[in-house]
């Protein structure tokens, strides 16, 4: 019987190795950081770190190629699903995901995401819906709520003048090429855990060659919403979620069960 006190250390949480360890340039409390972490954790837990390629789109997350500890490609604004297609069709053994904002995906990149989904392209998209163009200083996004003030809707978004909020999951759900589709958020530990589960499922769909997968993450932009991170989370719950209800829109494994 030993009386030495060799400490046994069990890690409850540590940074995933699929992150590069570089500190991130996001504003304080911006959920981009959580989303990055979840993606990195999912990739690591699925053992895909050695063969996953990250695509950083144009938006606040443009530097994602610095943050992920993965082979990475920075791509042009909105075209990530096309680039991902080019990568995946050339290197089907790799896991390819794009990380895109709502300006990137739902505004300029609408065509590319729909066609990639329509082709049942075996790629995964992480879609950050924060209702605003963060990087360019808070202009309206297609996802901006009606009435919401942005730098290009100084009087609040008006349906007639500026169009209606675009619901990406609802739109993509109609396409048979989509294997996994879910909308999540990250405003509480419970939501974060659900988001991670969906992100994992999305990658699993790709591993199984089941088709296109996308997880929309309803996110905060404390800076351009003019709110503290905690306030932003509350506002998100009250204002964003009614327009962007959470849920799993498509799950290819459901049919299998």
């Amino acid at each position: 019987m030993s009386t030495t006190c060799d400490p046994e250390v069990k890690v409850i949480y540590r940074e995933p190795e699929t992150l590069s360890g570089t500190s991130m340039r996001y504003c304080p409390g911006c959920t981009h950081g959580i989303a990055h972490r979840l993606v990195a954790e999912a990739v690591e837990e699925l053992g895909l770190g050695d063969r996953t390629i990250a695509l950083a789109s144009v938006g606040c997350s443009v530097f994602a190629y610095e943050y992920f500890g993965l082979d990475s490609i920075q791509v042009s604004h909105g075209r990530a699903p096309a680039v991902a297609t080019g990568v995946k069709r050339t290197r089907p053994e790799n896991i390819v995901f794009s990380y895109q904002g709502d300006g990137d995906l739902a505004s300029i990149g609408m065509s590319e995401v729909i066609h990639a989904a329509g082709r049942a392209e075996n790629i995964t998209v992480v879609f950050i819906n924060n209702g605003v163009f963060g990087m360019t200083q808070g202009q309206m996004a297609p996802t901006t709520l009606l009435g919401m003030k942005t730098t290009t809707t100084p009087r609040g978004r008006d349906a007639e003048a500026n169009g209606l909020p675009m619901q990406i999951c609802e739109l993509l759900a109609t396409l048979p090429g989509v294997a996994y589709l879910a909308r999540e958020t990250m405003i509480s530990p419970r939501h974060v855990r659900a988001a991670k589960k969906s992100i994992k499922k999305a990658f699993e769909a790709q591993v199984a060659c089941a088709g296109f997968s996308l997880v929309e993450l309803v996110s905060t932009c404390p800076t351009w919403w003019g709110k503290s991170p905690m306030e932003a989370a509350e506002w998100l719950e009250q204002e964003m979620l009614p327009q962007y209800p959470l849920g799993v829109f498509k799950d290819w494994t459901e049919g299998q069960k």
Partner: protein
Amino acid sequence: MRKEVFMAGTGGQGVLLIGQLLTEAASQDGLEVSYFPIYSAEVRGGSTTCTVVISDDAVGSPISGRPATMLLMDQISVDAHLCRLKDGGLAVVNSSLVHTVDRKDIEVISIDAMEKAIEIGSERIGNMVMLGAYVQAAEAVSLGALEKALKIVLPERHHKLLPMNMTALEAGAELARQARG
């Protein structure tokens, strides 16, 4: 006559505001003037700088590689930018946040702007103290023009703060006079 000033500080110190004030004041004095902020890719943090060039003629270059004068709000700014000050140039530094100035070939005017600002009533008008000191030392614009400029640049709802700002400007000018002796 071409007067160049380069101003630098950290976000929140109000460098851009006093840059604009100086610019507007020069304009009010009937001078030609340009104001060029360095905008940063990141939304937040990092240093803020601006260059103001005043001239009685067309301004010419709004950029200056080696400006003749500088207004520096903190040590980081001094470390990053003072080397570019023209030989024999003038640096007005905020001695509340600047402890070492390594160049000998220049004139340095140290202003304890924070102390003075708190004395006047608010930490947040340290930038005004600095501007007052600067215009005095550099003979850039008149205090009268600065007063007019304040009214234009400050949003209407802040006009109640005009007297305090003027006090800070004047106090800065006085400190500069004293510093030069």
